[in-house]
């Protein structure tokens, strides 16, 4: 009898708190988005699962001795997991399109306005009662506009760990929503004629350029923005392993098993931050709202920049590729290609959009470095 009471008291049913139930539903929602809607499943599936696990009463997944506790403090609090992911992404990235058409770097720069405008917006939200974002919080939220998951997680873990869960949810959700968010903005800001513009074929890029490029980026970051070197450095290491051609076995592992293993644990660890106290508040609503604004502003800035450049440049530039400047590689580039094809079925923008797309990755890593340098200490 005693034993039965003890068994009952050790059930989840006897110990559930309302917040845990709600957060578990959030976890289920993330799993639904990942599996049924194919929303960035590589991260949202383990993240949704982690959200469920961390909210199980009694089990103590995120307390000392629990699995998620170890994962979070070893891999995310230290910044190690996002940096390993970034190395793998670097090893998967081909900068050829960017080197062939370097002007597209300006598109990647313009799209970062989404970040800094959101920073302003986050501070403005402090007028809302119940919301009190510090400048650090606002910076961590703003980086959602960078449309780059590891960058957002890395910055949030440094500047506002208590908001990490909400920021990661927003960042990955909106990245998955890129094909829905971007097209209306792109169509609204461009004319039919502009969308029909065909671009000149890209010149071939030599091996030596691809090898020196990550090294040049690294040197510039060292000179001008050391606070961005963790992110940019690991990204460039991965890219150098890829392009140098002398360490193919390391590059292959960085792109496959290492990034896969890290992704599983990163997702679980981020999910462990989705506790009721940290997530169920008006601030989360603010973050979700700001995220949508950030993506929209970033998209619009990229498109408007491309329109301007098209007017000034001798070679035609299709303004649609400006939207790819938000990064969200390679989805945003595909969206640009798709919207372009609607206007002109012979217009293949994919390769042209890859330039601003990878420029956007660099751009948001640089923006993260600026925020770390100015707000971080």
């Amino acid at each position: 009898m005693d034993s039965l009471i003890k068994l009952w008291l050790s059930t989840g049913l006897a110990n559930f708190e309302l917040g845990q139930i709600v957060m578990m539903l959030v976890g289920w929602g993330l799993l639904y988005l990942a599996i049924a809607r194919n929303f960035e499943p590589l991260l949202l599936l383990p993240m949704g699962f982690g959200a469920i696990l961390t909210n199980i009463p009694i089990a103590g997944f995120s307390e000392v001795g629990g699995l998620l506790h170890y994962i979070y403090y070893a891999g995310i609090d230290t910044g190690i997991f996002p940096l390993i992911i970034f190395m793998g992404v670097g090893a998967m990235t081909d900068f050829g399109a960017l080197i062939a058409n370097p002007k597209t770097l300006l598109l990647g720069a313009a799209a970062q306005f989404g970040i800094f405008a959101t920073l302003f917006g986050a501070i403005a939200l402090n007028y809302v009662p119940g919301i009190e974002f510090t400048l650090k919080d606002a910076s961590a939220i703003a980086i959602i506009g960078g449309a780059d998951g590891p960058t957002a997680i890395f910055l949030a873990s440094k500047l506002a760990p208590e908001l990490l869960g909400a920021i990661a949810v927003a960042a990955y959700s909106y990245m998955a929503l890129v094909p829905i968010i971007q097209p209306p903005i792109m169509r609204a800001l461009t004319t039919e004629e502009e969308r029909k513009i065909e671009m000149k074929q890209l010149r071939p890029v030599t091996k030596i350029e691809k090898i020196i490029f990550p090294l040049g980026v690294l040197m510039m970051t060292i000179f001008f923005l050391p606070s961005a070197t963790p992110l940019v450095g690991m990204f460039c290491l991965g890219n150098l392993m890829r392009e140098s051609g002398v360490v193919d076995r390391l590059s292959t592992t960085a792109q496959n098993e290492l990034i896969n293993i890290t992704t599983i644990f990163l997702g679980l660890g981020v999910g462990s931050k989705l506790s009721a106290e940290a997530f169920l508040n008006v601030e989360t609503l603010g973050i979700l709202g700001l995220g949508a604004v950030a993506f929209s502003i970033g998209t619009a800035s990229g498109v408007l920049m491309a329109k301007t450049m098209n007017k000034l440049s001798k070679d035609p530039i299709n303004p649609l590729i400006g939207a790819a400047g938000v990064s969200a590689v390679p989805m945003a580039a595909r969206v640009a290609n798709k919207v372009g094809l609607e206007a002109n079925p012979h217009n293949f923008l994919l390769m042209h959009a890859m330039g601003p797309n990878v420029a956007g990755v660099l751009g948001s890593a640089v923006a993260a470095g600026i925020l770390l340098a100015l707000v971080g200490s």
Partner: protein
Amino acid sequence: MMDNMQQQFIEAGTLMLAGMVFVFAFLGVLIVFINTVLAKLSVKFPDPIVVPHSRPNKKSKSTTNGDISPAVVAAISGAVKRYRSQHGQDK
């Protein structure tokens, strides 16, 4: 408290300005870097001219297991062609 907000807005505005200037400057210098350094390098060290199908051969080196030599690949391609023509199948 309103003072505080104003203070924060000023900080946020400065951040926005400094940030965008810096991002454009940084990526702008990178354009210069590509147009000068990389452009010169690509002229000085052009890629060796290679027979087209030697590329995939080199790539396959990186996979540690299950390599298939180009000769076998060629033979398979040949087999595919013959198979298709014999069976009139296209996909």
